[in-house]
């Protein structure tokens, strides 16, 4: 099954809408509750990163019997130093974004902890692609 969602940068009033919709889908598919919680947490952080740091994004979800793949593709400033961005505490969030309680610099590491594999590719000035894979049989985590 494949699903596609569009998200708008800067739109904090809708941040989390994709994660909450995918949560319902996973419940309908009877995905194990613990697994689904991890998947949705990772997705939420990825979704919020597009809202906080990029201009617009597309989230593609691809589910089959053995794994769920989430691809988050955005148009935005991109990430120059991905290793640095992965460090807990590193954040370039604006003052406005920080006032809302985002910008702890923990989102990417939460995504890594809550998925079986995470790949980031980015072109500065163009955008970022984050791919998250989680296996549904629970054996590969």
């Amino acid at each position, binding site marked *: 099954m494949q699903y596609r969602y569009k998200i708008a940068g800067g739109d904090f009033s809708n941040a*989390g809408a994709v994660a909450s919709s995918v949560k319902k889908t996973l419940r309908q598919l009877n995905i194990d509750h613990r697994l689904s919680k991890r998947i949705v947490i990772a997705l939420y952080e990825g979704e919020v990163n597009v809202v906080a740091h990029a201009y617009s994004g597309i989230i593609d979800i691809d589910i089959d019997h053995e794994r769920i793949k989430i691809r988050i593709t955005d148009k935005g400033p991109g990430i120059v130093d991905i290793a640095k961005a992965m460090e807990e505490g590193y954040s370039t969030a604006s003052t406005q974004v920080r006032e809302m*309680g*985002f910008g702890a610099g923990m989102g990417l590491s939460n995504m890594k902890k809550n998925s079986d594999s995470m790949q980031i590719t980015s072109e500065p000035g163009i955008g970022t692609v984050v791919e998250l894979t989680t296996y549904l049989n629970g054996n590969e985590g």
Partner: protein
Amino acid sequence: MKISEIVNRLNLKVVAGADGLGAEVTGGYVSDLLSDVIGHAAEGNIWITLQTHQNIVAVASLKELSAIIVVKGSSPAADTIRKSNEENIPLLSTGLDTFRIAGELYNLLLK
């Protein structure tokens, strides 16, 4: 202890999400940084924060927290209230600041 008992003992105002008041509380977490809560709060925790926008309910729901206490008498935004009712996560309010309400909750749950 159930949320409803904490509401009574700490004199909290139930702003929204009253359907979730029967949930059991496993402990508390204090933070105003959403990703910190995502990384470190445990299921069933009551979360004390000064944030009032709708993303706090999204985070509480993702982490299956038992309730949110907003401090210093601040009033949550309308869409935060709507979301709290949708998700059945009680949104509670206190006039106290974070230090004092966290202290009272600590005494109630852990002392």
